[in-house]
């Protein structure tokens, strides 16, 4: 009943090996278990760089990649609008009012998707509209994100009554449906695309404040922040250079979602006549006057909305993919 006395590895014994101290156990084989290295049977896995790792996860999601491609296409269309569009977005062809698309009878190849009530080529207006959508999305997200992040950083770092005041304000803003707020703001400022963008940015901003503040509160107690503070980093440096880069993941995801919300809200405002004003070829505004033609000329109604849908869908797909790729909790081991 000799229990095979397996000697412990050097780091788990205190002092010298005990097996030779007056023990008369039967020893077998070698003096100790060499930590025999098994033959390497697994591939050499060096940790890929952060971007490559992110891209690996992101590209697994087919929908996200499709979304990215579609979005890039829209960006390209927006940039090359002058080159691609067959006509100008505002030129009215009086002889061709409400002409159907080319595949229906009455349509011509000059106006591939037909014309609207005052004879403007729908396709060209859609192409130029891509510019506006992209423009709206970028500006709104930049304004909302930058102000939101700044306020959130201040709230997170300042704590105390500044923090409470800011968060109460944000709670009030969040209590309102965003479209309603934007609506009222535009009503006060006057209907125009710029005012619409500002209003939407203000309504989207509380999300960034909340996210940033939550992330800051999470990061602040960590050691690397304390060490930076000890070394003498200024508040500003702490905020922007030390802490902020580590809070980026949820902010990026929120930016993607805000982009699509901005486009939808701007279109809604345009539809109500409170955003971009005619003859601006913004997709929502294009739908505003089209209500009366719903039954007569369905193409005037369908295509602008379809453009919005495809664009927003692409961005949402990308946003979902971004969230899955960046969220550490969802990372599979």
């Amino acid at each position, binding site marked *: *009943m*000799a*229990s*095979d*006395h*397996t*000697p*412990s*590895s050097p780091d*788990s*014994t*205190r002092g010298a090996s*005990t*097996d030779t*101290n007056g*023990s008369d*156990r*039967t020893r*077998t*084989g*070698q003096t*100790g*278990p060499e*930590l*025999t*290295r*098994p*033959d390497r*049977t*697994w591939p050499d*896995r060096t940790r890929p760089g952060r971007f490559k790792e992110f891209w690996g996860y992101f590209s697994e999601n087919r929908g996200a990649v499709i979304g990215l491609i579609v979005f890039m296409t829209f960006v390209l269309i927006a940039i090359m609008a002058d080159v691609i569009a067959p006509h100008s977005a505002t030129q009215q062809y009086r002889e061709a009012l409400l002409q159907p698309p080319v595949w229906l009878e009455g349509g011509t190849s000059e106006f591939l998707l037909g014309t609207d009530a005052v004879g403007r080529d729908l396709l060209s207006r859609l192409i130029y509209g891509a510019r506006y959508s992209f423009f709206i999305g970028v500006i709104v997200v930049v304004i909302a994100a930058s102000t939101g992040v700044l306020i959130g950083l201040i709230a997170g770092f300042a704590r105390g009554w500044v923090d409470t005041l800011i968060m109460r304000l944000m709670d009030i803003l969040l209590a309102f449906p965003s479209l309603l707020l934007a609506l009222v703001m535009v009503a006060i400022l006057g209907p125009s695309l710029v005012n619409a963008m500002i209003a939407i940015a203000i309504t989207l901003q509380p999300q960034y404040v909340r996210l940033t503040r939550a992330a800051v509160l999470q990061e602040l107690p960590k050691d690397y922040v304390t060490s930076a503070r000890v070394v003498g980093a200024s508040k500003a440096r702490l905020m922007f250079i030390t802490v902020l880069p580590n809070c980026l993941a949820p902010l990026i995801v929120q930016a993607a979602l805000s982009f699509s919300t901005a486009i939808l809200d701007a279109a809604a405002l345009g539809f109500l006549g409170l955003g971009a004003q005619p003859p601006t070829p913004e997709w929502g505004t294009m739908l505003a006057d089209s209500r009366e033609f719903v039954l007569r000329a369905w193409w005037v109604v369908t295509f602008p909305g379809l453009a919005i849908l495809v664009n927003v869908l692409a961005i949402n797909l990308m946003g979902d993919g971004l969230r899955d790729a960046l969220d550490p909790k969802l990372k*599979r*081991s």
Partner: protein
Amino acid sequence: MPLLDVRNLCVDFKTSEGQFRAVDSVDVHVDVGDVLAIVGESGSGKSVSMLALMGLLPWTATVSADAMLFDGVDLANCDARQRRSIVGKDVAMIFQEPMSSLNPCFTVGFQLREALKAHLPLTRRERQQRAIELLEQVGLPEPERRLRAFPHQLSGGMCQRVMIAMAIACKPRLLIADEPTTALDVTIQAQILELLLDLQKDTGMALVLITHDMGVVAETAKRVSVQYAGQKVEEQGVRELFADAHHPYTSALLAALPERATTRSLPSIPGVVPGQFDRPAGCLFSPRCAHADQLCHATSPDVATQAMGFARCHYPLLQGVPQRSAS
């Protein structure tokens, strides 16, 4: 005919880096009234094999076996309805974390009566009566009050008793207990184990006890099956195993028991259990085995004879001495 007859069970999990073999050619045999202990470290696949039997694995798992028979019924190929009529009634299982194993939204009584309603044709009054009896049987005082309580109002030990009550509600022929005491206080552990053994003796049901604690094995089991890295490496009667373990791993496990220590520092087994990416080519235990040689590192060992405890080893031990001649 054995009550439970599982041969060559394999379970693979789909992971982001390919298939992971959690259980590799495991055999399990349980007779009527038997008490089998399945021992192993975390990652040895001991729970997974039993979960596979009960059909409780997640969607990422693929189960295959030469035979998976319970009381003659082929569990591997039966349809869902047939399996549901057996699981919970003739075969029951209790789990490691009793507090989270009970639904927090429903009372204990509801969950207990539900188990009865699913399998037995009793009236509501009879179910309530039986529920009270069951709680008494598992040693819970004031059963009527407990039946109205929610799980978060009970302690860990009480929750586990409720789980046991639910498991034995329909008088199963086999009870599988997956580390039932690991999450409980030491004092409660002894009580729960005693309860399980008493129930086993009283009802004559077979008991499969999954544990990593050799001490528990010594006190409770009739037969022991040792698993390592998804494979069964030894199976013997409990006395024989403690007297003379045939597989180096079992031997090392026993040597690590504090009760058996003869020197000042406790022996331990160096190294770690192989994971998904560092599975050795030959015997899975060879990197950590004191007696391993070239053959062990290169070739997978066959299973030894019954006399040698079905040890999966090229040189099974006899009185601590590896038998280099035959295998």
